[in-house]
């Protein structure tokens, strides 16, 4: 009984924790411009994160080693430091975007300017990291994040022409007004939003935080293989809402309020309140994850003690680093930079940095010295190699597409 409860809790947390500001914004932007014609990119991204997180979680559970320690061991210090710089900068950008997302959601509730909410949001994130137990932090953020199911409810209440949505999803390019390069730019953005590197740093370090062993492999697999795809459905629901309401009226999404507009039309104030609470939880949860990931990556690269299972004084540099990252994030937001634009850029750079993180995990997942009998099976290696090609293609195409399309304008 207790065990099945644990599995259910893990899955629910994975669903609620899947969506972050990057998924919210990118899916709504894409839905409002391309309908569901890019739905396949979400599916490709979700399968990819399942493969990747499953490997990283297994490596962490079996070897007790988190991702960045292995990146350095396998790639050597030169490549690892490049990787670290890229991952850390993207992570910092994502952290900034998530805190901005929390503040924007609170602005919608309170009518107080989001800039005033930014320092409080960051302070709350720090307090949770400083004082709250890892598993409670994970479960609360994930479970409240489940309220984002409101997007799926909203989509049903809008009673759209399902046949038309299905046609968009199957046909691919739907609109004649958008260029091919823009279409592919947003395909890469959706892929990057689904496969953000911090998710893997967090997932593998979290396995170490919670002391996972080989016995927990089944739980880990269930979390990833059931939780993430259901989380991906929430992403599609967000895109679907935008496709039904915003696309026909040619409204392009430039603010968080527009992401929620379809839900407000469908479900009124009550559903809107549910969605806003869900967005606060989802972005705050992701802000916690990115802040911790910033600490994890550098601490693991340099061999510092890290983790929330230690008192902060026993992982002093790790905690100091996270405080500095939060201050930098707040400082960046207070310059008045648009959090939505930060988000859009961060998902593209996520796609660029992905191969650097993916390859070493794939190598270690096949190394019997670390994995013993739990090395990758042949079928998984087959899929993992296909994804290596996809990930490389997305990474190579990302920056040229960013330049050609002027960030999708």
């Amino acid at each position, binding site marked *: 009984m207790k065990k099945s409860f644990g599995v259910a809790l893990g899955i629910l947390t994975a669903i609620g924790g899947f969506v972050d500001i990057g998924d919210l914004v990118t899916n709504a932007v894409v839905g409002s411009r391309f309908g569901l014609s890019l739905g396949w990119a979400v599916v490709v991204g979700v399968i990819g994160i399942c493969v990747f997180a499953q490997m990283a979680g297994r490596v962490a559970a079996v070897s007790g*080693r988190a991702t960045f320690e292995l990146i350095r061991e396998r790639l*050597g210090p*030169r490549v690892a430091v490049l990787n670290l710089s890229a991952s850390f900068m993207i992570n910092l950008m994502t952290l900034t975007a998530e805190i901005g997302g929390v503040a924007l959601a609170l602005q919608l509730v309170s009518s107080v300017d989001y800039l005033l909410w930014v320092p409080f949001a960051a302070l709350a994130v720090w307090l949770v990291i400083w004082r709250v137990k890892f598993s409670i932090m994970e479960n609360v953020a994930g479970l409240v994040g489940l309220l984002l199911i409101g997007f799926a409810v909203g989509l049903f209440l809008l009673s759209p022409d399902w046949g038309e949505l299905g046609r968009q999803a199957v046909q691919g390019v739907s609109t004649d007004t958008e260029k091919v390069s823009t279409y592919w730019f947003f395909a890469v953005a959706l892929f990057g939003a689904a496969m953000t590197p911090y998710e893997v740093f967090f997932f593998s370090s979290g396995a170490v935080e919670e*002391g996972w062993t080989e016995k927990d492999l089944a739980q880990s697999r269930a979390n990833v293989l059931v939780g993430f795809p259901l989380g991906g459905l929430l992403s599609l629901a967000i895109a679907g809402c935008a496709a039904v309401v915003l696309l026909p009226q040619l409204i392009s999404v430039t603010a968080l309020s527009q992401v929620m507009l379809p839900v407000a039309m469908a479900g009124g104030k009550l559903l809107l309140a549910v969605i806003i609470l869900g967005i606060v939880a989802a972005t705050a949860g992701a802000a916690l994850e990115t802040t911790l990931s910033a600490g994890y990556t550098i601490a693991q690269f340099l061999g510092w*003690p890290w983790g929330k299972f230690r*008192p902060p004084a026993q992982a*002093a540099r790790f905690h100091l680093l996270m405080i500095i990252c939060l201050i930098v994030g707040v400082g960046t937001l207070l310059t008045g930079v648009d959090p939505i634009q930060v988000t859009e850029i961060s998902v593209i750079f996520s796609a660029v940095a992905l191969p650097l993180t993916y390859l070493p995990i794939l190598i270690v997942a096949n190394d019997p010295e*670390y994995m013993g009998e739990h090395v990758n099976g042949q079928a998984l290696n087959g899929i993992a190699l296909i994804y290596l090609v996809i990930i490389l293609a997305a990474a190579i195409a990302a920056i040229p597409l960013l330049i050609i399309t002027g960030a999708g304008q």
Partner: protein
Amino acid sequence: MTPGTDDRPGRWLDAQLHLLDRQVLDVDDVPVAVVDDLELSEVPFDQEISIDTPPPVITALLSGAAIATRIFGGRPPESRMQRTPWAAVVDIGVVIKLAVGRDTLDLAWTERWVRDRIIGRIPGGRHIPGRKRSEHSGSDERGGS
């Protein structure tokens, strides 16, 4: 450890593969550093080496400034090397274990400085997150699991 043709019992280790960039844990299994570089016993420079000279042995694990020289090349000044004597190593697996505590090692001074000057002074800094009682034991217990 000794390369060559002898048949003494032991394991063959590739310094690049099995030592460099490995995590180092202290006697309580707390991370202290990563092996940034290795220090070898003196090899005479620019001289003929006679055939019966013993091969050089590893004398210390280096960390700190050594990482910069691994990335950018060059050689840090002797005074900037943070050395962990090879004699302290007790086990080499996927991680390298030491027989000594971190507080006896020079290389952990930055961690101690940040702990004593900053993090340890913030209220709650010495408690495990989510636990009521503070735990001062040096052991590496997991919080609440």
